[in-house]
């Protein structure tokens, strides 16, 4: 268990090199990859989210922890896939059309990956058609839309309408966020969830996918 605690702490402290080395070492000792994920990495990222909520951590710490988590995850991913482990869900994420700001979106993508989701990151300035096409071509069950400008956030509505028109709206839960986005706006455009900050995204995605499975 000592190794798991060290891996947990390396992620919490944003030490990507240590995180990768410890994951490698644990694999060398035949610790099952899923155990590393469930008992070290996910709890570490949950703790990072908690510290962010308490304002002990800020955006830089979040980015560094996410980076450290990804460094370990890169090593585990092929092994997890080979063992048939299923992700918590599949997320298609992007900053909407006309908007090039990607810090918040990258953060959410990294936190979702750390939370056990498979993440398909379409980047910034993503057209509604691109979201639709990607959802159609994958097993995605969550779509995350980000915007930093009031002028571009209206493209979130167009994207949701595009999903409806393509008959894909019922297959996915749509989460929206970004500085100018409000809960009221999210409700008005028919999104399923709104996150005031990046750390909310993981719990929201978990709740929505669990609800979807039960429903």
């Amino acid at each position: 268990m000592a190794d798991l605690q060290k891996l947990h702490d390396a992620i919490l402290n944003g030490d990507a090199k240590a995180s990768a080395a410890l994951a490698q070492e644990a694999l060398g000792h035949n610790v099952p990859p899923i155990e590393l994920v469930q008992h070290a990495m996910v709890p570490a990222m949950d703790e990072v989210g908690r510290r962010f909520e308490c304002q002990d951590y800020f955006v830089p710490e979040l980015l560094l922890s996410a980076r450290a988590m990804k460094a370990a995850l890169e090593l585990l991913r092929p092994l997890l896939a080979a063992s048939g482990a299923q992700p918590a869900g599949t997320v298609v994420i992007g900053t909407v059309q006309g908007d090039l700001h990607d810090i918040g979106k990258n953060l959410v993508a990294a936190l979702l990956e750390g939370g056990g989701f498979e993440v398909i990151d379409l980047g910034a300035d993503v057209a509604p058609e691109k979201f639709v096409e990607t959802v159609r071509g994958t097993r995605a069950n969550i779509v995350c839309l980000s915007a930093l400008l009031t002028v571009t956030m209206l493209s979130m509505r167009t994207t949701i309408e595009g999903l409806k028109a393509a008959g894909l709206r019922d297959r996915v839960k749509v989460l929206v966020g970004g500085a100018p986005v409000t809960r009221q706006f999210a409700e008005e455009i028919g999104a399923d969830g709104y996150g005031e900050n990046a750390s909310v995204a993981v719990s929201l995605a978990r709740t929505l996918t669990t609800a979807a499975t039960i429903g």
Partner: protein
Amino acid sequence: MRELAEAIARSPHTIDVEFLSKGLHDLGGAHMREALQARVDDADPARHDAVLLGYALCGNGLHGLEARRVPLVAPRAHDCIALLMGSRQRYAAYFNAHAGVYFRSTGWLERGRDIEQLTRAAGTDFTLADLIAKYGDDNGRYLYDEFTRYQTQYQQLTFIETGLEVDDRFEQQARAEATEKHWAFDKICGDLTLFRRLVGGEWDPADFLVVAPGGRIVASYDDDIIKAEPLG
């Protein structure tokens, strides 16, 4: 500042003017609204018929702003740049045709220092050296790349010429900045009509929102951009 001052000088009305820090909206919508509300509340109904806001919705900085004792008047625009272009339709057409443009104008460049101070207060202004000092070499460089990557996707700098320029020093500054960053440079003709109509009392509902006391400005999430909502 020059842009609004010119419009005020030509207005048939008596106008008390107050210029606020330029980088207010970098502090986030809620902080900008709080700062504006405090100033708006200082208006005296015995002396002022209306408070004129030289702002666009600006990252929701106007969202929730309340007219308590004096009516508020705001132009319908997402971005202050639309005020320099003369209409939000012209701004939208330019924005849609050019994703990734930074705008500069005489007023912007002349008052550039102020904005730096505010972004520092907001914690978004840092150098690579600052980040390395705080987070170490590897993590510091990583954070710097993450925080500045979106800027590398910006490809153009557009200078808006308003006709108020005394000489070409600010245009030259803008050109030099574009060259230094390897961006394309464009110069377009500004149009100060919206400023003139704002301070002239010509508040066509198509372009301006007037909120009577007892109401607040909220984002409308449609082509009108902003609308009034009763307080309470």
